């Protein structure tokens, strides 16, 4: 079974090719093909999971792709526990989202193309996950970026969507550049792209004493790699693209910007965790942890003041990704991955639920909604489950994973534990703010006529809701924490479950829920007074800490200014040089022209005249008729033979 793992990405790829090729002529206008491809991949992934649970050995397969000079470039796949988990998340969540899209995208003019892009995305993601070397991982990484660009800009007629896709592409490209540098750094010093060999060499102490510009090389390499993850996983300071990416269709937001693609950064850090772990004094991990922590808190605060339901979820995603990074950074390898998995399920659920709501209301603004729980019971209940999971309420999935991260933080870095706790509180707060605005009370919009979504959309919601509710149990301590047994990092001690801390985290979540209820449901405290109390902080948060404006000033204006300066240089200095050369050339050419007309041409004309005169004399010899010549030849032959005879 594991030997066939390379087939998994080929299913979506086949679907992609088929849909691009045949388009609307396929069953379900291509949608069924895409779903079938994904479902096959999911079935195979589940098979692999059972194999791995049956303690199969991880495998590492390679084929030579080409040789550049003496450097072999290889294609290969690696299937181990981490891969298995990611495969499962990508394919299962992906299948649900594909199915959901059949209903959500119904009637779209570019319906088949949407599924083609989705399939291509799934292929790229699976390639990334299965890669056994940095090069292939990078290829998948960039393909994922491309798909993200295509899908965010799916409604390219909308200028905002086109701009958002461009922004996402360029922003992540900054991170990718760092990551590429990191890959090259590793390759130059170790001469291989393969994880297995890199890890073995690092484990044996290679790179330990090398430095780059005074910094320890291993740390630099790890931080550079992390730069890629910062871009892809929308960490501070490259997080600004993710909220804008909500311009894409909602299933895309769910698939790419919640469940899978943004998790690629986290996955990459986990995949190369050895490098981070081996960096001197685990400096790289500190960087990861602090970036993650800052991101988590900052995004959570922004999430509190957003009114667009998808943007709330987007900031929540950023915040949760920060939490995962923080978890990885505070040596919570298992915790981070666990949160990645649970988050994928419930965030996909939330996005799809939000999509269902938007589908019904035709607006994104939660302040226009309200009272939807009666109209859309399925959506309401599943959304509530997702919210509870995200807020970390017992026994839903988020509780177990978030609790583990907090536990790790508490043991390794108390400051970050405080950040994490505050984030948890804010998370519960803003999520229930959404719930209260959207589903309870009375409907505030008078133009919309909400209705429950079709079965093809609600059924995936229920499946994901079931996962969101119970998937956390694989990490439950009273079941022996099987997830930890499955995925763990050699060299990190497991920290035992702490009931007090668990209760504390539950209390924090409860506090968040209650305060949200107090403000938005019971309206004990008016929200306007809260805004006034926050004062300048509120302004700061509403403007998302002025990141976009900062980038506008520093990068966009800066680039434009440099462009202006270069243009001036070009116009006034280079053009002047060119003009001077041109003038000199014209002068020289005039001189030469005189020489040419009077001396060279004179000589040529003389020759021509002489030849003409001679030809005029000689042309009477040439009749131009072959038969005359032939006669002369025949006569010549006769004379020659006659001479030969007479001699």
């Amino acid at each position, binding site marked *: 079974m594991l030997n066939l793992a390379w087939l998994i990405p080929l299913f979506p790829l086949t679907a992609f090719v088929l849909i691009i090729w045949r388009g609307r002529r396929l069953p379900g206008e291509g949608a069924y093909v895409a779903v079938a491809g994904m479902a096959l991949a999911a079935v195979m992934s589940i098979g692999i999971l059972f194999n791995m649970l049956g303690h199969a050995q991880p495998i590492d397969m390679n084929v030579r792709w080409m040789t550049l000079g003496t450097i072999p470039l290889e294609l290969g796949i690696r299937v181990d526990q981490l891969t298995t988990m990611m495969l499962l998340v990508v394919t299962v969540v992906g299948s649900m989202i594909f199915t959901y899209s059949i209903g959500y995208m119904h009637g779209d003019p570019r319906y088949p193309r949407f599924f083609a892009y989705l399939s291509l995305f799934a292929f790229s993601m699976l390639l990334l996950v299965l890669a056994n070397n940095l090069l292939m991982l990078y290829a998948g990484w960039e393909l994922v970026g491309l798909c993200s660009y295509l899908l965010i800009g799916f409604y390219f007629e909308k200028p905002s969507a086109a701009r958002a896709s461009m922004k996402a592409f360029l922003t992540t490209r900054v991170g990718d550049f760092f990551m590429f540098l990191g890959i090259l750094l590793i390759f130059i010093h170790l001469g291989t792209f393969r994880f297995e060999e890199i890890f073995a060499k690092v484990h044996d102490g290679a790179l330990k004493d090398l430095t780059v510009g005074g910094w320890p090389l291993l740390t630099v390499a790890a931080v550079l790699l992390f730069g890629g993850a910062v871009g892809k996983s929308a960490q501070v300071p490259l997080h600004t693209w993710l909220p804008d990416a909500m311009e894409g269709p909602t299933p895309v937001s769910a698939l790419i910007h919640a469940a899978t693609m943004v998790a690629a950064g986290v996955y990459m850090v986990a995949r190369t965790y050895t490098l981070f772990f081996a960096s001197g004094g685990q400096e790289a991990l500190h960087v990861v942890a602090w970036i993650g922590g800052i991101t988590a808190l900052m995004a959570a605060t922004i999430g509190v003041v957003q009114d667009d339901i998808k943007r709330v979820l987007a900031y929540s995603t950023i915040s949760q990704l920060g939490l995962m990074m923080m978890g990885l950074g505070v040596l919570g390898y298992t915790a981070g991955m666990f949160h990645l998995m649970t988050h994928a399920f419930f965030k996909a659920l939330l996005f799809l639920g939000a999509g269902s709501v938007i589908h019904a209301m035709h607006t994104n603004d939660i302040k226009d909604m309200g009272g939807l729980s009666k109209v859309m019971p399925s959506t309401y209940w599943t959304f509530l489950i997702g919210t509870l999971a995200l807020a970390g309420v017992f026994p839903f999935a988020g509780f177990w994973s978030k609790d583990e991260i907090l536990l790790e933080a508490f043991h390794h870095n108390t400051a970050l534990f405080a950040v994490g706790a505050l984030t948890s509180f804010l998370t519960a707060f803003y999520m229930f703010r959404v719930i209260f605005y959207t589903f309870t009370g009375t409907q505030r919009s008078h133009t919309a006529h909400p209705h429950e979504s079709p079965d093809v959309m609600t059924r995936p919601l229920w499946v994901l809701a079931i996962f969101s509710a119970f998937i956390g149990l694989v990490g439950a301590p009273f079941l022996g924490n099987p997830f930890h047994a499955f995925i763990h990092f050699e060299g990190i001690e497991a920290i035992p479950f702490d009931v007090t801390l668990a209760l504390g985290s539950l209390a924090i979540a409860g506090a968040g829920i209650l305060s949200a209820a107090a403000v938005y449901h019971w309206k004990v405290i008016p929200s306007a007074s809260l805004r006034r109390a926050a004062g300048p902080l509120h302004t700061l948060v509403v403007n998302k800490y002025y990141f976009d404006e900062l980038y506008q000033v520093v990068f966009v204006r800066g680039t434009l200014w440099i462009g202006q300066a270069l243009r001036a240089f070009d116009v006034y200095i280079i053009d002047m040089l060119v003009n001077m050369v041109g003038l000199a050339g014209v002068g020289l050419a005039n001189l030469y022209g005189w020489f040419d007309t009077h001396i060279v041409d004179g000589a040529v004309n003389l020759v021509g005249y002489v030849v003409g005169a001679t030809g005029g004399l000689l042309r009477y010899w040439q009749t131009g008729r072959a038969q*005359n010549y032939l006669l002369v030849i025949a*006569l010549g032959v*006769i004379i020659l033979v006659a001479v030969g*005879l007479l001699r």
Partner: protein
Amino acid sequence: MGEQAAFIILSIITLASAVVVVNSNNVVRAALALVPTFLGVTGLYIMLQAEFVAGIQVLIYAGAITVLILFVIMLTEGGTGLRIRQRNEQAPLGLLTAAALAAILISVLTRTEWPKSTATLPQYTASAIGNTFLTNSVLAFEVSSLVLLISLMGAIIIARREK
């Protein structure tokens, strides 16, 4: 005796019709007179035991080239050239030259001692010719097939009406 008779008859057929070819003012008749000329030469080939060459001679010369010539005559002037001068102004000189060349060549031929061989030709020459073509004379074979191809293309390109 019979051999001499056959040779004389064939030679007369060949040369007489060749004279018609050369002399007739009607181009179509000249072209049709090529047929007996070629058939006479074919007869000579058969007397020389070159049956295969004889067959090819009939197939290519009498069957194809003559028809091609007739075809072109009909596509160009047809038989309309009867009242047009068919010879150029150097006709007497040309006749003299040709006759002189014939005389000189015949005198040379009759004086030369040819290194005759007493060996005989193989009974069945077609397969022997095939073998020679693919062994000793393979270069000639290849070159002539190349020339054929190129002249085929050339003829098509030259004769095609320009658009």
